């Protein structure tokens, strides 16, 4: 469609590309007032009011781009000036008001905030306010569709010129403003030009292989109605320095500044490949140069930052990139996003915007002082850095504008301050970018020293000395409680000393290591104490570990002796180390009385604990007494431990958490209760111990806390303090804890290399942190978060976590190379070391640390640190194995290890055999759950192992260990186990689908049920009752016998009832109602129901017409009304949350209308790839086989693969059954029902007309479909208050599948939790 020059100079034609981009954005959020730009020009001087009005009117009349409406088909809108009235400039005399300025501002504010509908409202408005005889304020407001920043300048320049002309009587100096018609013509020509093709080609190359673009916030940029602003004028010195930098590099000063901003942004994203958005005017060489209109575009400028380069070189390179981009700047960024497929994937095209606005003085009018004030300047999707020239005397102002949904005002101000400091350092730096700090001096002071102000006096002493002190103070207090023994402190010290003498006699002294191999017991504790009393460090050896492992540790640590009870002496390799048997079984083994053990000193090692090593060899961490004393003293004070406390020791001694369990009591004179060896895995046993012994402090690894809380014995438990460490403690787990148990919950973090824990965070019931921070450092400890140049990073930015301070280990035993690699100099405290944890973290604004994952291939299994490399080495060493990889998969019950191996040529791998070998060599936590044989290990393009491409293994473990009470339950459990091929027998609450079942296996299961129980249950029964107990109930009710069958209530067994419960939840939360798609069945929402993390009832609405004999609704509105009746009886007090896929979305909208009509509240309304019924109004009615085609589509099958002649009910049925689809197992009656419903729904949709509804919609578009079509969320705009549009990368048919459901559930879950009234 070209441009029409009508007989009256009417403008008519297709919108410009610039306008189209804005138009599409506007339709999604029509009430967003930020699409208006306003300004006030204050004029002081003698001006006649009416003349002024005339000048304004004349100026605005020259802008024919304002006098338009946008109309026509939403899919191809046009702009027209036909019948559009002139914009009248009014005069408003406020000189009589008491506070004229205030009145003006109030009126202006409400006008600027008024959204304008381009179909019906004037696109610009203007008022001349008379403040006094010699003061007028000219207010102007234009919608973005008709004016941009440059256009406003044109307007202002022309206005001032006309004003001058009127006041001097001279002719105007500026020519008349140009016509928008010329711009339309030029735009239409560009659309079909070779230039456009060249521009597209340029961008295709420029943005090739662009990874995800990051910005200063991780959130999704969406237009906001308002924005934060932080402003400051740049000093003249800095301005000069930046200008000089530009000159030296041969680039314009805007490009120099933008380059500096790019470097600044890179420091926050941790990515050297930065894409900024640069607004370009697009006026050069264009007919639009003298036409006030919108033609501005934002181009992506992509630059790779190299910290080794000089800032000058970076500026030069940026200048080149910028020049090239501007040469192709006409190509719309909205179009680019679409073509690159970013829209379908919800990806950004650029990060922050940098806007440099040089000073454009207004022409002067003698006798008139003019001052321009810009009001809103447009929506800020993310963050924009504007450098606004203010004229020779005024300098340049930096304005940081940000989207309040992504940034707070405080953050925005911080960016401003930090950027200014960065710019100074950048401009002054001659050598390399790396030397420019990211933080200001003040910030550095806060984030390096301020957050680490943890100095606290702690005695330089040893654990042994503290024990002795306690013994002197409270000799008769109970120190140790075991299964059958209780010892006072006096008794403990007596035995400890005896053991120490025995060890001394065996040659143990200061500097030695002694292996201690005991099951958890009082003797083990005494063993540790005895070793330390002899001046040595203890090395815990777990008798449950494979012998080979024990041997390996002994071989590596070379202990002076190994201490063990006689029952375990066989575990100690006599050929490599001496054994000391304790307790003594004979006189020879008893302690001599004339030997004096050496007391340890504070810098002596207290213990050596081994941790996993990435190259296959575990490493021994050596912790000195003074380090662990610091940790324990802090704990005592922080949690007010005293002699009345009773601490439970249940953590294996090879795990350093055990250290505080073991030795904290003796620091306080409290009691240590030693749990029997296997108790830590048994929730019931732990609960019993806690109750029986009145335990006041206990530790859990989070993945063990979960099952413990779930166990009935945890109900009503009271324990004063519970500590979690070893894994991330999640918010849901915290909340579950406080619902079940009375006590304090504390989160601790720390590697073995830093004396157990270095940070702490209290997690009381009212703590709403999510994620739960790892917290703040303990005494005499410093935490640093640094980037890869060891510069401290700003809060909120993820960096590498380092630990410094008194708790650092001495190093790795016998591994100086490793030690110097991980313990490096502390750059902030001369002479000290810091430890590289390999963890990623970020500071919160309040000074608490948040854990952000690992930087490498270390994982935690049940709290224990595992290097995947260690397991891989063991497997790869096995005969027949060519290469091996291990991956940790996140599962609800904790991470699971899966190993993958490839065979050497000519060999066939035996996965079970491999697993057995690993079991013999590595501790339990490191044994993969399953070993999978692969032909090849997947590699990345650079030839490295691509762990992310390792395939997901089949699920295989039953959860519930509860008892099955009826024969049917036992039978069902057995059938589940067989059909799903899982380990272990399922329990009463185990869910078929959670165990890995899906439609295929469901069909198998139903067949088993048919043959074993003689009961013909439909798949719906399984969908609505997927657990062992409930499915067993369904079988019992559908049991053999005619009486059972004739019970009408048994309709239910087919899962086709009108309200189908897809997941259960508490009564106090408003359920989510999922409305069926065309086929009338809601089983497709089962996955989404399970994906919603919050426990909430999800109910599927199904078509009443599914059962024969039931009437079909006469209209979609009638259908919606009857659904509303069904769900709203007796439940008017809560909001109704609705969700619909495809046709279900159309019905959901109609239900929302009906709900509002009857006075109910509408909550979240979610549409999955649904579009208004209008789209189908003109579609031809479907043919007779349409229902069958629809059935196939519902099942994910392609109807085109069936010969049209064969498209009968039978063939379709057979096809579905053969594919194992549950729809193929439907009875004849049920299938009839589906066909009827599909036909009816098709017709009802085509006949339906939507009304506008005062509700907000959340729309998810199937990003991989609709390419080239015009379907988008905006189509709902006329029928809703607001549409929140998301695009996710799936095809229509997969929008209710697993991956799509995860995405939808994340967004929906948040909305549901934060909504009013829930």
């Amino acid at each position, binding site marked *: 469609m070209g441009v029409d020059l009508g007989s009256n100079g009417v403008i008519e034609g297709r919108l410009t590309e610039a306008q189209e981009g804005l138009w599409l954005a506007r339709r999604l959020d029509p009430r967003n007032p930020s699409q208006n730009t306003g300004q006030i020009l204050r004029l002081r001087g003698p001006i006649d009011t009416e003349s002024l009005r005339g000048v304004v009117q004349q100026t605005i009349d020259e802008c024919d781009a304002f006098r338009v409406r946008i109309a026509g088909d939403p899919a191809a809108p046009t702009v027209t000036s036909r019948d559009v009235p002139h914009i009248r400039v009014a005069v408003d005399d406020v000189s009589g008001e008491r506070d004229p300025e205030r009145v003006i501002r109030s009126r202006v504010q409400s006008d600027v905030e008024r959204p304008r509908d381009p179909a019906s409202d004037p696109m610009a408005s203007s008022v001349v306010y008379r403040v006094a005889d010699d003061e007028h304020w000219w207010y102007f407001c234009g919608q973005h569709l008709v004016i941009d920043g440059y256009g406003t300048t044109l307007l202002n320049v022309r206005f001032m*010129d006309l004003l001058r002309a009127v006041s001097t009587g001279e002719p105007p100096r*500026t020519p008349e403003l140009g016509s928008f018609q010329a711009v339309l013509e030029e735009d239409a020509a560009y659309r079909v030009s070779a230039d456009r093709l060249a521009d597209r080609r340029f961008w295709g190359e420029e943005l090739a292989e662009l990874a995800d673009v990051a910005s200063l916030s991780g959130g999704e940029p969406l237009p906001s109605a308002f924005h934060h602003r932080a402003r400051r004028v740049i000093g003249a010195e800095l301005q000069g320095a930046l200008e000089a930098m530009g000159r030296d590099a041969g680039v314009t000063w805007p490009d120099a500044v933008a380059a500096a901003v790019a470097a600044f942004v890179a420091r926050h994203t941790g990515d050297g490949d930065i894409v900024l958005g640069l607004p370009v005017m697009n006026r050069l*060489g*264009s007919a639009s*140069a003298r036409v006030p209109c919108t033609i501005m575009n934002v181009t992506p400028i992509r630059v790779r930052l190299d910290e080794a380069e000089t800032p000058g070189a970076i500026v030069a390179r940026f200048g080149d990139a910028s020049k090239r981009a501007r040469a192709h700047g006409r190509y719309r960024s909205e179009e680019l996003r679409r073509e690159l497929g970013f829209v379908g994937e919800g990806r950004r095209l650029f990060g922050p915007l940098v806007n440099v606005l040089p000073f454009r003085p207004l022409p002067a009018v003698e006798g008139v002082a003019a001052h321009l004030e810009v009001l809103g300047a447009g929506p800020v999707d993310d963050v924009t850095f504007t450098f606004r020239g203010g004229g020779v005397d005024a300098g340049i102002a930096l304005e940081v504008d940000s989207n309040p949904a992504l940034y707070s005002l405080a953050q925005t101000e911080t960016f401003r301050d930090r950027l200014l400091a960065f710019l100074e350092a950048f401009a002054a730096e001659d050598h390399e970018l790396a030397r420019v700090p990211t933080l200001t001096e003040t910030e550095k002071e806060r984030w390096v020293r301020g957050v680490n102000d943890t100095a606290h006096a702690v005695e330089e002493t040893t654990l042994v000395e503290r024990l002795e002190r306690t013994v002197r103070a409270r000799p008769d207090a109970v120190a140790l409680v075991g299964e059958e023994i209780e010892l006072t402190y006096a008794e403990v010290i007596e035995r400890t000393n005896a053991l120490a003498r025995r060890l001394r006699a065996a040659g143990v002294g200061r500097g030695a290591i002694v292996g201690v191999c005991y099951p958890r017991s009082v003797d083990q504790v005494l063993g540790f104490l005895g070793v330390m009393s002899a001046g040595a460090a203890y090395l815990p050896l777990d008798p449950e570990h494979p012998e080979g492992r024990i041997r390996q540790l002994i071989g590596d640590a070379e202990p002076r002796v190994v201490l063990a009870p006689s029952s375990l002496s066989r575990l100690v390799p006599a050929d490599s180390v001496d054994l000391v048997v304790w307790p003594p079984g004979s006189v020879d083994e008893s302690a001599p009385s004339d030997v004096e053990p050496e007391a340890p000193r504070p810098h002596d090692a207290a213990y050596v604990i081994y941790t996993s090593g990435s190259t296959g060899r575990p490493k021994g961490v050596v912790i000195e007494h003074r380090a662990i004393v610091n940790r324990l003293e802090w704990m005592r004070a922080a949690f007010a431990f005293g002699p009345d406390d009773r601490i439970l020791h249940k953590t294996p001694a090879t795990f350093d958490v055990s250290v505080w369990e073991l030795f904290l009591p003796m620091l306080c004179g409290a009691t240590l209760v030693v749990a029997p060896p296997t108790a830590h895995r048994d929730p019931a046993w732990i609960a019993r111990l806690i109750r029986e012994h009145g335990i006041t402090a206990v530790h859990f690894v989070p993945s063990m806390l979960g099952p413990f809380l779930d166990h009935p014995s945890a109900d009503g438990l009271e324990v004063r303090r519970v500590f979690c460490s070893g894994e991330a403690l999640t918010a849901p787990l915290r909340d579950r804890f406080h619902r079940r148990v009375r006590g304090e919950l504390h989160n601790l973090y720390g590697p073995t290399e830093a004396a157990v824990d270095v940070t702490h965070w209290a997690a009381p019931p009212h703590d709403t942190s999510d994620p739960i921070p790892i917290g703040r450092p303990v005494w005499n400890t410093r935490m640093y978060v640094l980037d890869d140049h060891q510069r401290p990073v700003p809060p909120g930015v993820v960096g590498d976590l380092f630990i410094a301070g008194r708790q650092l280990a001495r190093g790795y035993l016998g591994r100086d190379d490793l030690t110097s690699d991980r313990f490096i100099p502390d750059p902030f405290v001369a002479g000290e070391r810091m430890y590289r944890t390999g963890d990623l973290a970020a500071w919160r604004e309040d000074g608490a640390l948040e854990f952000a994952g690992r930087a490498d291939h270390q994982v935690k299994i049940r709290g224990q640190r595992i290097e995947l490399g260690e397991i891989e080495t063991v497997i790869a060493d096995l005969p027949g194995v060519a290469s091996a990889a291990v991956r940790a998969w996140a599962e609800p019950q904790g991470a699971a290890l899966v190993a993958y191996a490839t065979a050497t040529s000519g060999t066939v791998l035996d996965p079970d055999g491999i697993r057995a070998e690993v079991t013999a060599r590595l501790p339990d936590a490191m044994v993969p759950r399953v070993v999978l044989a692969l032909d090849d290990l997947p590699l990345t393009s650079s030839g490295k192992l691509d762990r992310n491409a390792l395939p997901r293994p089949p699920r295989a473990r039953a959860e519930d260990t509860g008892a099955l009470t009826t024969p049917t339950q036992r039978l069902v459990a057995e059938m589940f186990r067989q059909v799903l091929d899982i380990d272990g027998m399922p329990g009463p609450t185990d869910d078929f689908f959670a165990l890995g079942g899906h439609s295929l296996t469901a069909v198998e299961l139903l067949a088993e049920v048919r043959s074993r129980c003689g009961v013909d249950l439909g798949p719906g029964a399984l969908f609505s009752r997927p657990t062992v107990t409930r499915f067993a109930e369904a079988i019992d009710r559908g049991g053999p016998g005619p009486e059972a069958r004739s019970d009408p209530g048994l309709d239910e067994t087919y899962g086709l009832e009108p309200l189908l419960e897809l997941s259960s939840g508490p009564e106090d939360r408003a359920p989510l109602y999922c409305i069926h798609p065309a086929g009338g069945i809601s089983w497709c929402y089962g996955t989404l129901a399970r994906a919603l993390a919050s426990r909430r009832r999800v109910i599927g609405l199904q078509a009443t017409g599914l059962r024969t004999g039931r009437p079909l609704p006469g209209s979609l509105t009638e259908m919606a009304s009857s659904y509303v009746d069904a769900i709203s009886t007796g439940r008017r007090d809560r909001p109704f949350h609705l969700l619909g896929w495809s046709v279900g979305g159309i019905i959901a909208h109609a239900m929302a209308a009906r709900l509002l009509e009857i006075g109910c509240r509408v909550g979240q309304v979610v549409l999955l790839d649904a579009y208004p019924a209008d789209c189908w109004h003109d579609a031809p009615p479907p043919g007779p086989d349409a229902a069958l085609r629809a059935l196939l589509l519902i099942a994910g099958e392609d109807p085109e693969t069936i010969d049209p002649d064969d498209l009968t009910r039978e063939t379709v049925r057979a096809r579905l059954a053969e594919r194992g689809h549950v729809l193929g197992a439907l009875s004849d009656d049920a299938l009839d029902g589906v066909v009827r419903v599909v036909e009816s729904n098709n017709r009802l949709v085509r006949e339906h007309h939507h009304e506008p509804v005062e509700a907000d919609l959340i729309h998810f578009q199937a990003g991989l479909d609709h390419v080239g079509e015009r379907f988008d969320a905006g189509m709902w705009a006329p029928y809703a208050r607001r549409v929140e549009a998301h695009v996710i990368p799936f095809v229509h048919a997969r929008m209710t599948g697993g991956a799509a459901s995860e995405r939808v559930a994340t967004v929906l879950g948040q909305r549901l939790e934060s909504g009013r009234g829930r």
Partner: protein
Amino acid sequence: METMRADIAAILDQPTSLVEDGVNLLDLGLDSLRIMELADRWSQASGVFVDFAMLAEEPEVTAWWGLISDRTG
């Protein structure tokens, strides 16, 4: 007009011979900021109001000369 040509060449740091009649000055690397500078300079020199908007539409030396000479004469 020759002064104009020289001014353009100087601001582009190019030889005057490159600033030919009919050549699109954008192809020679002229950008908005530089055009603004030229506009300011010529406004002051000629006493005629010249701004970016006027020059931007057709960045070519004869066109520019036309704009300014039309109004001084």
